[in-house]
């Protein structure tokens, strides 16, 4: 897949698995609604989705598993390996009602950095302050 682009997969996951690198895991999230009438059933379904069996099913249609226990599994395509290695340091997005506001703050920080309006330190300090405020709220 990556060879077709003339890129080694290391090009965009360089440093995977080291301290200085964190990828993002997620994008699709599975949640149990607090107001559902079928909480145990929902939980059973979530547990099933998180099982190796279900993750391998998903892998058949191209979804990279989120279980690091599947790293090196022979049931996965070989080119998944580099992404599986990323899982060691990958982080999920913050599960918080104000996540979109936090995302905005991070986006603003990086935009200001790239436009040269603020140094990385200033921009990220500002974002951290905003996000701390959002986390402090209930």
């Amino acid at each position, binding site marked *: 897949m990556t060879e077709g682009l003339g890129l080694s997969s290391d090009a965009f996951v360089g440093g995977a698995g080291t301290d200085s690198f964190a990828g993002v895991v997620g994008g699709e999230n599975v949640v149990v*609604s607090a*107001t559902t009438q079928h909480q145990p059933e929902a939980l059973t379904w979530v547990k099933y989705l998180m099982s190796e069996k279900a993750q391998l099913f998903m892998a058949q249609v191209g979804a990279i598993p989120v279980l690091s226990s599947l790293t090196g599994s022979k049931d996965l395509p070989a080119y998944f390996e580099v992404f599986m290695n990323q899982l060691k340091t990958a982080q999920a997005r913050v599960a918080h*009602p*104000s996540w*979109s506001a936090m995302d*905005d703050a991070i*986006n603003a920080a990086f*935009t*200001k950095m790239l436009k040269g309006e603020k140094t990385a330190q200033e921009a990220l300090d500002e974002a951290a302050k905003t996000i701390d405020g959002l986390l402090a709220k209930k």
Partner: protein
Amino acid sequence: MSQLSVRRQVSAQTNQALGLREQRIQQRNFAPYLFLLPGAVLFVLFILWPMLYSLRISFFQWNIVKPETSVNVGVQNYLDALTDPIFQRSVVNTVIYGLITVPGQIIFGTFVALLLNARFPGRTLFRTLYYLPVITSWVIVTLLFQYLFNGQAGMVNSVLQSLGLIREPIRWLADARLVMIPLTLLGIWKGVGWTAVIVLAGLQAIPESLYEAAAVDGANLRQCFLQITLPLLRPTLVFLLVVLTIGAMNVYISGLLINRSGNLLNEAHFVLTWMDKQTFENFNFGQGAAISYLLTAIVFIVSFVQIRFLQRDVMYS
């Protein structure tokens, strides 16, 4: 028949007559209410009830999925909005938008109305042309302005560059201050036609005889405008000022599209676009409702002050 009984009889007759009349009034008044009913039902259903419901939402941390689990937070939503830097910035942006577009529309609208009031061939055509932007869709003209002011291939940039006025293309839609230029230009361009029609109506209500009398007295064009036209247009202009200010405070669709497509870092919001984002992107329904009510309060106060201090009758007799 004694005097007393006569009086009684008379009073009984009067009472009877009064009763009849009351009955007749009731009968007569029934029909108008029936006619008012459809409008009143629609008003209550689609305006009053949603307004009161959103007032209620504004005091809650509202759960849209299960409203009954919402938490009453008192005025916290209002306090949060007022201390939120993004909301404060949105108020400033909205005020700036109003300060530019309201005088812009009134000045250009009056100018256009004066031209359209003159007698010249093709007058109807021009009246139609000036009114065209008013009936266009906000969405479509905002998209058009986005093309015109595109940072890389926009026509405005290429014209400015070919005239040698700028060297580098300007990124109109990526800067919270610069984006006010396309936004206000759009607002003025779209509103001039409507303003002109209102002013035109005001102009046509001014009796020709006043200008004739002024001409006899030797007044020039400028004096006629300052002494006759402007004072007699005053009620029209005050009306426009109030209505256009309310319109400017409610600026929404153009800001919404431009904020969503550009990367303006929440710095170019208007009050309503921020309300929209808080409600439908951050799912903070209570906060959104509170912002709506804060805007309502601001609009009410501003309109009240404008009408109170500016409206007075001018009589030339």
